[in-house]
Structure formats: C-alpha cells, structure tokens
C-alpha cells in the first residue's frame, strides 16, 4: 500500500503488471525473432500474406479475443490436454501463464513488425563476409544480425511492453481479475472507476503514463548514446 495525496494505492497490481509485461516482452522477442527473420527472408507475395495474418488479432476486439482464448485454453480443452501430455501441470487461464499467453497473442504484430523491418535492412554481404570467416548461422545471427538490429529490438520490446501494460480486455477475460494473482493495473484502474474511486484511478493512470514515458525515454536515450549508427 502506498499513500499519495491521502489516497491509498495498492502496489500489487503494479508489480504484477510489470512482471507480466516483462515476461510477455521476453516471450515475444523469443518467438518473434525467428518469425520475423523468416518473414524478412521471404519473397514479397508470401510475406504480405503472413504480414496480414500476423496483423489479424488486431481486428478482433480484445475482449472477444480473450473470449476465444478462454474457450481454447479451457482446462478440459485439447490445448491443455496436449500440454499436459508433455508434463505441464496446472491451468493456462486465470493464472500468470494465461495472462502472458493472452498478451503474447495480442501484442504479436507489434513485436514482429519492427524486427522484420530491422532484419530486412541488414546487408546480406555482411553475413556472407562472416560466413567466409567460418561463422555458422547462429554465430552470424548473434554477432552480426542482433547487434545491427539493435534499434529494431528496442522498438519491438518497448511497443510490446507498452501494449501489454495498457492491455485490458484480454487480460480481464483470460486472467479473471483475481487480486494478487491476475489483477493488473489496467483492471485495477477500471475497478476504481467502477466503484467511483476516481482519485485512485487518476493517480494510477498518471503513474503509468509517467513511468512509461520515463522508461521509453531512458531506453531510447541509452540507445542513442551507446547504440550503433549504421548507414
């Protein structure tokens, strides 16, 4: 609990939000990187189809997306059964795992797009040069592609993070708004608005905005100071 201007602010949702957003960002970078690389290598016709598919979650309202995720990840549903087969215990929905899965779906395009643009901009001759120096594919990827796509990773991470922080519909649907477990800041603000606690809502919103702006600017600032300027 934190007191600001005489108003009680519960901190648990804030920590949870940061944790979920961080995990989502991590998962998105891990999944999005190979996907974006693959898309960047494609010829234009398939690429646009894939781009369209990746952008498709955008079209569904998040609550509706959450509704379908709820149905798909139902504890007696096939996906959970499938995972259980591999030793997965527990439930996908109404847990942090569920929040992360939902957010990953929802923010996928924001991670994939900037990465793809960054990868497309890398000169293949640099990779060729590395190959002639006996660098294997993974070696080339980590020593050439990753450092040169720094800005793409940065944009992907910040967009994914920001979008997850501001995420509401999916999280509410898939998470269940359980205090201390799946109640994120966005839902908390909403609850405060619902119960006429506008002061808390205002303070929380302001905190999120200021915090996010601070994070964005620090990250961009660091990038600017230490980043590679290419081209």
């Amino acid at each position, binding site marked *: 609990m934190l007191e600001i201007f005489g108003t009680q602010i519960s901190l648990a949702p804030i920590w949870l939000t940061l944790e979920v957003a961080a995990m989502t960002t991590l998962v998105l970078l891990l999944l999005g990187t190979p996907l974006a690389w693959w898309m960047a290598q494609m010829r234009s016709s398939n690429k646009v189809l894939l781009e369209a598919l990746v952008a498709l979650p955008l079209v569904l309202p998040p609550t509706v997306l959450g509704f379908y995720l709820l149905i798909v990840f139902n504890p007696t549903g096939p996906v959970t059964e499938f995972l259980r087969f591999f030793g997965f215990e527990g439930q996908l929905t109404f847990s942090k795992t569920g929040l992360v899965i939902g957010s990953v779906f929802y923010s996928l395009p924001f991670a994939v797009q900037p990465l793809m643009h960054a990868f497309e901009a890398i*000169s293949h*001759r*640099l990779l*060729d*040069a*590395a*190959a*002639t*120096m*006996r*660098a*294997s594919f993974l*070696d080339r990827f980590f*020593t*050439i592609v990753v*450092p*040169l796509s720094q800005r793409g990773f940065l944009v992907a991470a910040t967009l994914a993070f920001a979008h997850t922080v501001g995420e509401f519909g999916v999280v509410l649907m898939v998470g269940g708004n359980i205090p201390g477990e799946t109640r994120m800041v966005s839902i908390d603000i909403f609850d405060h608005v619902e119960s006429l606690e506008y002061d808390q809502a205002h303070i929380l919103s302001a905190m999120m905005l200021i915090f996010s702006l601070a994070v964005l600017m620090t990250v961009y600032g660091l990038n600017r100071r230490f980043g*590679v*300027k*290419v*081209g």
Partner: protein
Amino acid sequence: MKLGSQYSHPVTMQGNLQLKLGPFELDSGEFTLPLQGITVLFGRSGSGKSTLLRAISGLDKRTHGQLRVGEQIWQDGRRALPTERRHIGFVFQDAALFPHMNVRQNLNYAVKRLPKGVEPADFDEIVERVGIADKLDRRVTFLSGGERQRVAIARALLGRPELLCMDEPLSALDWRAKAELLTLIEEVVEAYRIPVLYITHAPAEVERLADRIVFMQEGRIESIETLQQALSRVDSPLFDEQGAVAVLEGEVQPIESGLRPVKLGEDTLWLSDSHEIHKSKVRVRVVARDVSLALSDPQSLSIINHLPGKIVELVPESEHRMLVRVALRDGQRLFAEVTTQSAQRLNLQVGLKLFVLIKSVALAE
C-alpha cells in the same frame, strides 16, 4: 584438405556449376582450374563473374552442379558444403566491414573463428604489411575507401584461407589508392602463397596480376588461358581503348642515374618509375601505340629505350593501320602499331631486323 598442403603442390578445382537468377542463367560448363597464383575472372559487366565467384564460395544457396577442390567435394547436385567450412577468404567490392565493430574487432572476428589446430597468422605482421597498424582502434565508418579495403584484405588473410576470392576489390577507389593496393595484393599473395580468384574488368589489373584468366561471357566460361596466351591474340578482350598491349617480364636491376633497368635477356629496358620494388621479377606493360620502329638505331633522339628485334608477324588492323609483332632477342614479343603508310615507307616485312623504340614504359599497374 590440410591447411598449407596446397602450398607445395597446387590443388585443382574442378566443377560445373549452374545458378539461375531471375532472367540470368549461370552455366559454367566443365572447368578445371589449378589453384595457384592469381586467377582472374574477366568479362563484360553482367557476364556472371560475381555470380560464379559466389557460387564457388557457396554464398548462393540456389547453386547446383558439381564442384570439387582437391579431394574435397564442395557441391554435389543441390548438396553443398556450407561456406563456413570451405576455408575461403572473400574481399568484397565494398569491403563489407562490420559497422558495429572497430578495426581491431573486425580483424579479430576472423582470428577467433580459426579452426582448432590451425595456427593463427602473425597479426602484427599482417597489420603492418597491409598498413593499418595505426588505425586498429578506429571506427570502420570513419575510414576512407582505400583504408576500408586494406582492412578487408587483412581480415581475409587473418582467416588463413586456403583460397582467397576478391570481387573487384579496387574498383571503387581512385587511381592513387588503386596503385598502392595493387602492390599490396601482389606482395601479400607472394608472401603468403595463397591462391587467389580475382574479379576485375580493368585490363591493367589483369596484366599486372593474372597468372591465368577465366574469360566469361553470358554466364558461360568461354576459355581459360594464361596471360601470355590471352595477350597474343590480336583481338584479345583485354585490349581496351588503348589498343593492343604486350606484357614483358624482366629482372629488376638496381637503379642507375634515376632510371630502373629491367633486364630482358641481354637487352635492357629503362623504366622511369623509380619507386621501390621488392621483387626481382617484374611485369612491364607496353602499349602498341607507344612503340615505334626504326630501321637503324637512331641517334640524337630523347627516347632511351632502343631494343633490337625482328618482325614475326604483320597484322592489318584496319584499312590504314597495322599491328607489327616483334620478337625481342630474348624471345619475348610485343606489338607496335603503325600506319600502313609508315609500314610501306619503311618496307616492313616478316623477318626484318629493326629497332624497337619504346617511349613510355610502365610497370604493369
């Protein structure tokens, strides 16, 4: 293939490569190439030189066909040995330095990835020879074009390649940088005895460097010839707007009164280039248009190179001009371009002994 094994007896590259790029089709045809000295790929723009070199290096996954280097199979149908296991070095036209690393890091990229059991090359020596010792901590984005190519060459050498590929490494440079780097390449190749595949479309570079030439046309290998074979044709593709050219090989002597004597058998050619030469044998480039013929050794003439020779062939070039092929006393041959008028006036005929006057002679560069 053990590293260094090719130094003693040359390995042979044998292949037949295909690669389709949109409308363009590379189809090399069967070829056999001794990997020794410098092999130049020569041909007009768009003839497929770069494509062939990339196919040989395994840089284009769409390549198919056959390629065998020594005992090792590099390509068999669609199966290809990945580039990183071919032990080649590659110097690209634009250097392809890693922009996020400084010079030293670029160089170390190659050193760190040497296979176990391969002894690293002498870093300091290479860096010194290539002339970038004072630039190791520079950001590569702040290097000039010539400096960039030096780094690229050093980087390729530090990878201890068993074959060095160079795709027009000098074409983006101005003549001063070009001249310096040509000398460097020559020295380096001689010092480290690495076979080189070299692309250029500058005849002067070919004449200076080539041991043999792969002529390419429309995606095919037309022929593989030694430099002398290539230059002996009157219509050699190597001749450009300067016309026919001959390359003479001679032994360098110490400088005498500002001129550099080069022995061609018993005769001596005097070069006005007086810069340092670290080799004993040099190539001298003689343009047919710079060669005059005199029936007797002329006096009171400022031309200093008067060599005795004998006409071995008369080749009409056009209605009014002809090329005269003259054998020098040591058997080497060169061309003189004369007008038909002059030829008649001097009564030039095969077998005629005369003097060859060469005004301007340059080391091939």
